[in-house]
């Protein structure tokens, strides 16, 4: 056990000194050394060696399977396509919302020339349109949350691919900028669980 502990300590020290060492290279070296030792091994050691070799074959098989799945497609094609489509949705809703707002502003101008009930009705209608147009902000924030989730998946998939060496062209994963007060930036909540305005009013009143 003392030998094993010592070996583990030495391996940890080596890992600290050479953090960029490829696991595959280390495995190759260990395999080469073990193959030169096989003639001198006891029955128990031979059994352990067989286990290690089996483990190596399992890893090689897993690597081949991951390569066959073409997981690169997820990061190279599927996720960029999905995020581009979502960005296009935000752009289209912004364009449409601006067109609606322009028409609404024209109606407001017309309302200034009217008096009485007609003016009131027209302004009430434009107020409701302005309120409804806030959907663009809310849906935009929800879509931003989905894009962030997709980028997280993309980064994790790329990490798995890099670890198992299934890809020849792995670049560094682009880091995401950590927002300020991250715990407080959750965006719109699901309506069934979110506090509404009256809940917030009560909460604020409790501070008075």
């Amino acid at each position, binding site marked *: 056990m003392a030998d094993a502990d010592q070996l583990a300590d030495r391996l940890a020290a080596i890992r600290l000194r050479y953090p960029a060492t490829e696991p595959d290279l280390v495995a190759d070296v260990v395999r080469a050394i073990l193959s030169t030792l096989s003639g001198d091994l006891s029955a128990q050691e031979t059994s352990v060696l067989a286990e290690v070799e089996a483990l190596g074959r399992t890893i090689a098989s897993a690597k081949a399977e991951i390569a066959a799945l073409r997981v690169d497609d997820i990061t190279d094609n599927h996720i960029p396509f999905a995020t581009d489509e979502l960005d296009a949705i935000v752009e289209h809703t912004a364009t449409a919302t601006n067109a609606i707002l322009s028409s609404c502003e024209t109606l*407001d101008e017309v309302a200034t020339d009217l008096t009485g009930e007609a003016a009131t009705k027209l302004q009430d209608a434009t107020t409701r349109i*302005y*309120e409804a147009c806030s959907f663009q*902000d809310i849906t935009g924030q929800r879509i931003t949350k989905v894009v962030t989730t997709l980028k997280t998946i993309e980064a994790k998939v790329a990490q798995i691919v890099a670890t198992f060496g299934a890809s020849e062209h792995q670049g560094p994963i682009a880091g995401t900028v950590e927002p*300020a007060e991250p715990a*407080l930036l959750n965006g719109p909540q699901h309506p069934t669980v*979110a506090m509404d305005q009256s809940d917030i009013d009560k909460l604020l009143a409790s501070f008075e």
Partner: protein
Amino acid sequence: MPIDKSINVLIVDDYKTMLRIIRNLLKQIEFNNVEEATDGAEALAKLRSGNFGLVISDWNMAPMTGLQLLQEVRADAKLKAVPFIMVTAESKVENVVAAKQAGVSNYIVKPFNAETLRDKIEKVLGHG
């Protein structure tokens, strides 16, 4: 005493459609002196160089959030008394508590209606 609707109002949001919506809703209740900023840093610069009687700000913006803007405003001797309404989709208890602790005057959750906006403006300007 009626509310002074001639005050300068600064509205802050990174969604330009939301700025346009709030500007129009303010116009309907006769607040016509409205300036816009699309993040906290731009808002702070405008506040420091202008004379504003009310800030209506979103929270989730970069690089400076609405909460950071509020903290800067409350730490600034010249600005600390300016009424500050947070208008945001952030509706968790911890958000409301953090905003209150930072000195928010009132808090509106998106999506909101014109009644709520008018009601909160009247409250923070001293007539609620």
